[in-house]
């Protein structure tokens, strides 16, 4: 079992005629074909004005609505450039897409505010933006993560950061801990799916036995997650918070990773998570071990 992505997922790519959009669509198709020979998961793409073309066997449509009608797609992976990306997300939601994975980095914050107001009125779920995407190992990946570092297994992995997700998946894999589903939620100030949404899904997913969450400085999402874990999560949880040494008031790559006024420090977040029984890795080298320890603790 898994969350978000399963065997019925059919994906299109918005921005498929761009370099990154096509490259990653090809990689995702390759991954899906390696693990599943029965049907195609990646069914086409959208670039307004280029409908009717085919790029490397992917049919291109002028609109998401047309792509949905002709392919039965229920998920989208978005590579549309930042100025137009908010619009692309709204189009996908309005066209009946269930899962929207926005990879694009650099969307204006106020565009995302309008997007998230719009999404609240629909049933669509947004992952990202500015994220590596979602992978259910052995089923499908919708995103830019390297497929081979993820093996199938019992750990639900949630992370704000891209390469740190890879690092965590790698460490988990070396310890024989594969993932049910791994999700990068993105580090922007306004995102779609957050820690709590995913904690709830993993808690309810029979295929997930343990949860690893990787946060970073800025905001209070990890503190909220800690409160949620205390009340609702029975499965073992391990965590890590990036940015213990980051100076206050400076932006560390991710727009969200800025500490101001002493709120959102790594120390506060680590403490809040530990207080609710989460095993928190002190060093990024020990993320896998922390998960192992959390599982052992619950088991004893």
């Amino acid at each position, binding site marked *: 079992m898994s969350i978000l992505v399963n065997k019925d997922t059919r994906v299109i790519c918005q921005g498929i005629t761009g370099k990154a959009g096509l*490259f*990653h669509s090809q*990689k995702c198709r390759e991954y899906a074909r390696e693990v599943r020979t029965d049907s195609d998961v990646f069914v086409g793409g959208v670039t307004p004005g280029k409908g009717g073309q085919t790029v490397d066997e992917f049919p291109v449509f002028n609109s998401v609505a047309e792509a949905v009608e002709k392919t039965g797609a229920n998920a989208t992976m978005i590579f549309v450039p*930042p*100025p137009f990306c908010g619009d692309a997300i709204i189009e996908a939601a309005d066209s009946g897409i269930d899962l929207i994975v926005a990879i694009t980095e*650099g*969307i*204006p*914050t*106020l*565009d995302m*505010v*309008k997007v*998230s*107001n719009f999404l609240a009125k629909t049933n669509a779920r947004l992952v990202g933006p500015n994220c*590596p995407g979602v992978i259910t190992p052995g089923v499908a990946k919708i995103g*830019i*993560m*390297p497929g*081979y*570092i993820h093996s199938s297994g019992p750990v639900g992995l949630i*992370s*704000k*950061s*891209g*390469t*740190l997700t*890879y*690092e965590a998946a*790698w460490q988990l894999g070396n310890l024989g801990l594969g993932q049910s589903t791994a999700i990068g939620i993105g*580090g922007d*100030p*306004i995102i779609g799916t957050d820690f709590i949404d995913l904690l709830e899904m993993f808690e309810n997913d029979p295929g997930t036995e343990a949860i690893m969450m990787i946060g*970073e*400085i800025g*905001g*209070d*999402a990890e503190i*909220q997650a800690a409160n949620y874990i205390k009340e609702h999560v029975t499965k073992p949880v391990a965590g*890590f918070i*990036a*940015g*213990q*040494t*980051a*100076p206050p*008031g*400076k*932006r*560390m*790559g*991710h727009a*969200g*990773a800025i500490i*101001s*006024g002493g709120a959102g420090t*790594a120390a506060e977040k680590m403490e809040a998570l530990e207080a609710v029984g989460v095993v928190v890795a002190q*060093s*990024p*080298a020990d993320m896998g071990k922390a998960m192992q320890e959390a599982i052992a603790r619950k088991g004893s």
Partner: protein
Amino acid sequence: MKIHEYQAKELLKAAGVTVPDGIIAKSADEAAAAFDKLGGDLAVVKAQIHAGGRGKGRFKEQPEQPGVVLVRSADEARKNAELMLGNTLVTIQTGEEGKQVNTLLVEAGLDIAQELYAGVVVDRAAGGPVLIMSSEGGTEIEEVAHNSPEKILNCNVDAGHGLQAGQVRKVSHGLGLDAAAMGSAQKFLPKLAKFFNDNDCTQVEINPLVVTGSGEFVALDAKVAFDDNAMFRHKELLELRDLNEEDESEVKAGDAGLSYVKLEGTIGCLVNGAGLAMSTMDLIKHHGGEPANFLDVGGGANVEQVTEAFRIILADDNVKAVLVNIFGGIMKCDVIVEALLLAYDQVGFTVPLVVRLEGTNVEKARTMLAESGKDIIAATDLTDAAQKVVSSISA
């Protein structure tokens, strides 16, 4: 992107937000002339730097001189300007090195009845812009939030429709304003919120927001910052950028598509991905070292970017060793090593270089490193890398 107070006030004034009468002065003579032109018997001379805390700040070259000063004559304006212009102002926010003052803002004095606080920021929890107000004007809002959180009022601002009249009534009641002051709030606050939305701001802070003796709202100070990601639709605002206010190496890194923040330590880092880059700093600290910088080369680094990244890291005299930490995903490890080896020759390393690689094509990449004949220390995992780079300094 941050701008100066005087620039913020010009923009706010154009948007219909009331600001004091003010004149820019770049010389002592201009400061004196500005006092005369304003025509009152009281004016304020304010040093223009991006950092806050100017009133309590002092100049390196003139330890008695504050960054904001009240003057009562043209002569006094001139004398203060002489002590400020060209000198270095150190405030709680500038760090020890301070900032050189090249511009002054001379403003007419106001009849101040009350000082409030007004700010608009994007709040993650609310999922949009929020107006923050307090009756404790003139104090840092973080301090008010800490000491007397009950004095802070929040109000959601719709990103499309701005602040509504009913919301202004709500905050006016919370602030204990009388009917006349509420009328002023109705003229002032919705325009402030609209300014925030129209210009893709990340921060608009008016502290203090003055209520004058006649009940008018005036923005006595103004701090404005814009969303870098939205600058494509505000090209005119880019002209307000002041490169003197930014760290030279951070500007250089930005131009090369790198994300770099200078820190105080001795171990330079080059990493792909923001989260992994922050974690690498943590890792160094965990093993007893101090990171010299944050540097994210991004997902698609090429030879030019890696070379520029090394140049920027090594230009920092504090750097005694460099750690490269790459988790190759889509970006293959052998491609990174190729760039690394070329950059290594072009830059000319004089400090130890520790490289940790993992991910796609790592075996090939490790072989390339080993066969390069260069003095590069290979590390097998994160802990090994941190230990090797820290001990390379102490050795």
